[in-house]
């Protein structure tokens, strides 16, 4: 089979066409539009599976389909100015395509059940199609710029989906929050693209790898930082925004305002996965930029911190949201410790079981209908004992919970264990890595605990809201509700990921020792990393590279006997520890919520301060709103306004008088401060003073912004010395 752009394009174009047509007919022919969307994503899945099985048949780590066409070419002589567009499909992309289209198909089908009675039933599918198409385009993108384009398109789609119920104030705020927060990361991302362009002269992944191998980044510094570090960090900031990593994780829980199927799509298959996918793609750059430790730490912090917050949530979707952040933390941790394919594997397994979890939660929520408020119920304190009412949903959710908790034989165990094992390996090598590693293990414990807490609160025990329970109908099997759940829950079994496939036919015991993920997904091939600058915390390259490179069960680039043994040993320890941890988490939850031997209230009162902090999500929102925006951005805005109005308008005109007056004001200010209020409330007075001055002068002047743009651009040109 020979794949060209036109044979790959249907994967992206089918959903996009469905979107384009659907957007116009949705008002009159809702059903037709929905069928169109579902059919298109099914077709897309068909094409994606062709590619996926093609790659499985080839079964070669280095096999890549890389086709480009010139978008525009304005280069002349030695000044290259050429931009290509195209596709870049390696094993990772193929797997990703298969997963995204598959999960999206199931979510589409489930949505026909879940959104049936919604008044904007058709429009939901319009967004879903566009969203899926953007994600697929991002996955097959060949260069960073087109990644960025679809990245932003996806940002827009998530904005629309989160604010789907825009009548609700919370939804309106949540989508703005999501949009703005991810935008912070995107700005950095764009800057990273510019930095790469300035060095490589191209933004294609292949060219970037080649440039890294050729050492083009060596000895390049901007603002005293190595350019590779700057670029890698900027791109990683994009991941931080999109994949909701610490400290930009605040938007994701609020994304719950969207309909549940769209949460499943955002949290599982598309949006957040895109961030991790990007950092996997740019992994060599980050390694060359010595960013691995930072990445690992951020991942660890996110994994643990989000898990702690999830402990105290009562909204079933909120628990899942925080568990998503936590799991994303694991993926980033995996990236940080060089566990490339385990991170990717966790991305895939997580996508499957998280989609299933959300769909099950949606199924639960959809069934629980409050007859007084005419709203669906999401609060766990009002649930309980639902396993008799909806046994099928319960079973599906149980599978997924087992998977996410890291119970053996389920997919989550396979991938998370591997990440943690690699982290342990790194930690044994370098003591600083103990921090993310311990955070990771702690997070695993908490994950097992809160997920089972959720299960127990929802499905076990006595129904706590009798009225609600009685009104809930017994689950009837309907194809568009249960088939997606069934398929997804089957795929939570670890055997699909840890099995070995190869050669002709799909499953063949060729590499008995090696699981297909491990042998198929490999780091982008970069010859040498020549940057030798010392890393943070006294950590030097030479050791780290060898071990992290060799820590993969790579049959071709063989480890020495001894090293392989060491690696296996460490991994076995890690696996044992995580099994113990997972079961103890389940045990604690069991003791607390089933047998009621241990009273949760006691623990709450013991750690009341912590509890409050957790309930307020570590005060992140407060910090952003009160601290950053009110104390930081608005004064900055005021300062800029001051420069605009106070300097630009005022001093240029009748300068001397104004200067005099300003001197006088300054003198008075010093007088007041020094004579009156130095000791008493100096700080407060100065803040108030600035506020009074700056608040009165506000700017909305376009020309001032224009001048600022000019200055920034010229500044950029002068500093980068183009």
């Amino acid at each position, binding site marked *: 089979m020979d794949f060209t752009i036109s044979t790959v394009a249907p994967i992206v174009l089918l959903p996009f066409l469905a979107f384009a047509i659907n957007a116009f007919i949705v008002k009159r022919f809702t059903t037709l539009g929905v069928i169109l969307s579902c059919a298109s994503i099914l077709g897309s899945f068909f094409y994606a599976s062709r590619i996926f099985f093609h790659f499985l048949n080839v079964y070669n780590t280095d096999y890549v389909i890389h086709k480009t066409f010139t978008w525009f*070419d*304005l280069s002349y*002589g030695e000044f290259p100015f050429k931009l290509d567009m195209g596709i870049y499909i390696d094993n990772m992309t193929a797997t990703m395509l298969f997963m995204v289209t598959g999960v999206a198909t199931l979510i589409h089908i489930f949505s026909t059940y879940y959104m049936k009675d919604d008044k904007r039933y058709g429009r939901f599918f319009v967004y879903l199609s566009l969203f899926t198409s953007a994600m697929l385009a991002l996955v097959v993108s060949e260069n960073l710029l087109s990644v960025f384009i679809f990245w932003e398109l996806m940002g827009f789609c998530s904005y629309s989906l989160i604010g789907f119920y825009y009548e609700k104030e919370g939804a309106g705020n949540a989508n703005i929050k999501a949009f703005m927060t991810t935008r912070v990361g995107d700005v950095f991302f764009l800057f990273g693209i510019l930095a790469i362009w300035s060095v490589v002269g191209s933004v294609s992944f292949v060219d970037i790898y080649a440039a890294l191998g050729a050492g083009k980044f060596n000895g390049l510094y901007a603002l005293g930082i190595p350019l590779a570090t700057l670029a890698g960090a900027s791109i990683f900031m994009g991941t931080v925004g999109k994949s909701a990593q610490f400290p930009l994780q605040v938007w994701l829980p609020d994304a719950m305002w969207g309909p549940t199927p769209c949460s499943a799509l955002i949290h599982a298959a598309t949006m957040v996965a895109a961030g991790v996918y990007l950092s996997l793609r740019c992994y060599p750059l980050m390694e060359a930029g010595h960013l691995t430790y930072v990445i690992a730490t951020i991942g660890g912090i996110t994994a643990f911190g989000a898990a702690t917050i999830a402990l105290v949530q009562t909204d079933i979707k909120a628990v899942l949201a925080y568990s998503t952040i936590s799991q994303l933390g694991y993926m980033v941790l995996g990236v940080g410790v060089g566990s490339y394919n385990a991170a990717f594997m966790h991305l895939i397994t997580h996508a499957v079981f998280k989609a299933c979890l959300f769909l099950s939660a949606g199924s639960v929520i959809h069934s629980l209908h409050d007859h007084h408020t005419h709203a669906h119920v999401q609060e766990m304190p009002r649930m309980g004992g639902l396993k008799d009412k909806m046994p099928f949903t319960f079973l599906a959710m149980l599978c997924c919970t087992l998977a996410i908790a890291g119970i053996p034989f389920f997919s989550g165990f396979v991938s998370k264990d591997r990440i943690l094992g690699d982290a342990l390996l790194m930690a044994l090598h370098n003591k600083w890595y103990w921090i993310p590693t311990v955070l990771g293990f702690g997070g695993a414990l908490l994950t097992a605990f809160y997920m089972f807490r959720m299960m127990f609160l929802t499905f076990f025990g006595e129904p706590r809201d009798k009225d609600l329970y009685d009104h809930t109908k017994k689950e009837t099997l309907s194809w568009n509700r249960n088939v997606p759940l069934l398929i997804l829950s089957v795929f939570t079994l670890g055997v699909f990921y840890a099995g070995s496939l190869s050669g002709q036919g799909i499953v063949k015991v060729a590499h008995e020792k090696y699981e297909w993920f491990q042998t198929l997904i490999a780091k982008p091939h970069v010859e040498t990393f020549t940057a030798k600058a010392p890393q943070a915390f006294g950590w030097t390259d030479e050791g780290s590279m060898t071990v992290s490179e060799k820590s993969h069960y790579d049959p071709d680039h063989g480890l020495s006997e001894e090293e392989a043994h060491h690696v296996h040993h460490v991994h076995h320890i890690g696996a044992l520890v995580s099994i113990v941890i997972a079961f103890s988490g389940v045990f604690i939850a069991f003791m607390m919520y089933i047998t009621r031997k241990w009273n949760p209230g006691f623990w709450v009162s013991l750690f009341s301060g912590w509890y409050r902090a957790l309930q307020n999500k570590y005060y992140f929102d407060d910090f952003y709103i009160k601290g950053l925006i009110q104390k930081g951005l608005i004064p900055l805005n005021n300062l800029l306004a001051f420069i605009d109005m106070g300097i630009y308008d005022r001093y240029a005109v009748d300068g001397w008088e104004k200067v005099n007056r300003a001197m006088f004001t300054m003198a008075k200010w010093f007088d007041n401060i020094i004579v009156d209020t130095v000791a008493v409330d100096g700080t407060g007075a100065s803040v108030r003073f600035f506020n009074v001055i700056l608040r009165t002068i*506000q700017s*909305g*002047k*376009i*020309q001032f912004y224009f001048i600022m743009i*000019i200055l920034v651009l010229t500044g950029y040109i002068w500093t980068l010395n183009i």
Partner: protein
Amino acid sequence: MISLPSYLFLSFALFIAGIAVMVARKNIIAIMLGIELILNSAALNFAAYTRFANDNIDGHLMSLFIIVIAAAEAAVGLAIVIRFFQIKETIHIDDAAQLQN
């Protein structure tokens, strides 16, 4: 006489003139005149490089599309200006400051 440096200089001059107009004027239509100048300078640059440093004429298409987009921009921009005038009875740019605060 007809050479790349002279064309670059002309385009440079147009660009500078556009910037000057955009910054110095307070009248929205006058600012749009400045924008047209800047767009012209960009299009001129494309055409000049096409002639002096390139084999294909893709640059001409680039200029053509710049001209097309400039026309669209002028149409929409001026419509907005006219509407703005109908509402506010002024086209002073500092009165278009709804974004303040």
